């Protein structure tokens, strides 16, 4: 919980908040600029009163956005729903009840506005999912994607570059990766050998495998994609023989799993 004497305020969006919001969004989701935040609000017709801001000691630490939509519930009945979006909290203020409080305020507002229901999209493997369940949200369905890679080395290079972009804003990741200077060799069936390393606080694609890599593993592309996306657990893939670890200490593998899934909270 927050310290008792900490001044906590919930208010609506004010012009200029987008700068700090962009910082928090970048830490929680994808790197984003204040301009894109404003563009999203404008395009989704989000009004300032639909943006809930949590402020601790006059610093924005959390936010929840409401986007009202109409969803079909059968028999041509379209029901107005309070769509919850952009739920985020700066990493220093997590597990203190800030976002739960903000969500309650947003849902109370939804109810007071005459909207009887709410919906949201989230991820099963993030702590927020538990918060939503506690607030009465029911899991409806997770979705399925169909993927076809045509130039995997290109995708891999972009993936490594994206790790660096994400790392720029990910405080927890930076902390955990401190001193972890390792190289990883991935032998992908039908693609070839791909390598990367983490050195001097940056991820880097390697053109050829290092002489003594720290981690070596092999898998097929679907398995590697599923493990990276959290669709199947690393342990399960190893058990099924679809992913084979040729080299790597358990602690190193644990860190690699975090890098792949990009989930850093315990």
């Amino acid at each position, binding site marked *: 919980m927050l310290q008792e004497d900490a001044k906590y305020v919930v208010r609506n969006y004010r012009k200029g908040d987008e700068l700090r919001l962009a910082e928090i969004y970048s830490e929680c989701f994808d790197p984003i600029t204040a301009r894109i935040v404003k563009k999203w609000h404008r395009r*989704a017709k989000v009004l300032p009163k639909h943006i809930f801001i949590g402020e601790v000691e006059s610093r924005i630490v959390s936010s929840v956005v409401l986007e009202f*939509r*109409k*969803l*079909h*519930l*059968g*028999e041509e*009945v*379209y*029901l107005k*729903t*309070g*769509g919850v*979006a952009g739920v985020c909290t700066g990493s220093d203020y997590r597990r203190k009840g800030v976002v739960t409080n903000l969500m309650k305020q947003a*849902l109370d507002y*939804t*109810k007071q506005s*005459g909207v*009887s*229901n709410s*919906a*949201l*999209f*989230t*991820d*099963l*493997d993030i702590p927020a*999912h538990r918060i*939503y*369940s506690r*607030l*009465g*949200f*029911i*899991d*409806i*369905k*997770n*979705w*399925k*994607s*169909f*993927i*076809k*890679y*045509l*130039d*995997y080395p*290109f*995708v891999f290079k*972009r993936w490594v570059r994206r790790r660096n972009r994400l790392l720029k804003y990910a405080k927890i990741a930076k902390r955990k990766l401190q001193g972890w200077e390792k190289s990883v060799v991935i032998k992908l069936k039908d693609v070839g050998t791909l390598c990367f390393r983490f050195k001097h606080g940056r991820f880097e694609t390697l053109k050829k495998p290092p002489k003594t890599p720290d981690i070596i593993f092999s898998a097929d*592309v*679907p398995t590697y*994609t*599923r493990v990276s*996306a*959290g*669709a*199947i657990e690393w342990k399960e893939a190893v058990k099924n023989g679809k992913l084979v670890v040729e080299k790597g200490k358990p602690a190193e593998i644990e860190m690699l799993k975090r890098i792949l899934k990009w989930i850093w909270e315990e």
Partner: protein
Amino acid sequence: MQMRTREVRKEDAEQLLSIYCRFAKEYVGLASRDIKTYKRLLRRKENIGWVALNQKGNIVGYVTARFDKRKREARISEIVIDPDKDFKQIAKLLVNKAYKSLLEKKPAVISAGSIRNPHYAEIFPQLGFFDMESTGIFMYAILDIPKFLTEISPVFANPIKRLKKWNGLLQLQCEEHNLFIKKQNGDIETLIWTNQKPDFKIMLSRGLLTKLLFGIAESVESFRKGKLKVETALNEKETARILAAIFPKKQFLTMDFW
């Protein structure tokens, strides 16, 4: 049936919306759209689309896709087919067109889905796609039960009206809040309250009501497991028939994210 395909044009917006509205009726979860949605979609350069036309030249289905040149990422966004037509046949035709058109742009990866249409599993693996169960999930909460029950009363009233060989008073009780629907000689009336004994009383939690509405729980099975309680003088077979009529099996589908 002979179908023609062509690339989507700006002037197709209205027809695309009309097909979407008809398609949406078959599912639960789809968001309402207006003409602006389609005008915006057709205006953007990175979007491509193909439509299927019947012999009269009317659009019976469409597929939209998006290509990000910098990332070399292509995504087949949505496939919408007139519910009166064969989804699989037309969707295959359109997806093949969109796929070939995307290949010309030399993407590094093509993805499809994010929505869960069971027919996708019959189309994409044939083109060499592999499937991936996502950890992304849609969640729903009923915040105000009395209001919600009033708003969704047609969802129950219409199937009761169509239900053969049954007249009487239905009471749906969700966590102490009630919805009363009376059927007499084929006429349906939603009552605010009554002291009359219902002929069919259903008692369930808001969680189960949500699951039944979105088609992720089955009413008869929930009744047999004791999760859904029924008070009626009818036998088990008749009870199951009425429950199945009130909560028909639905398919959840979502295409719009927020």
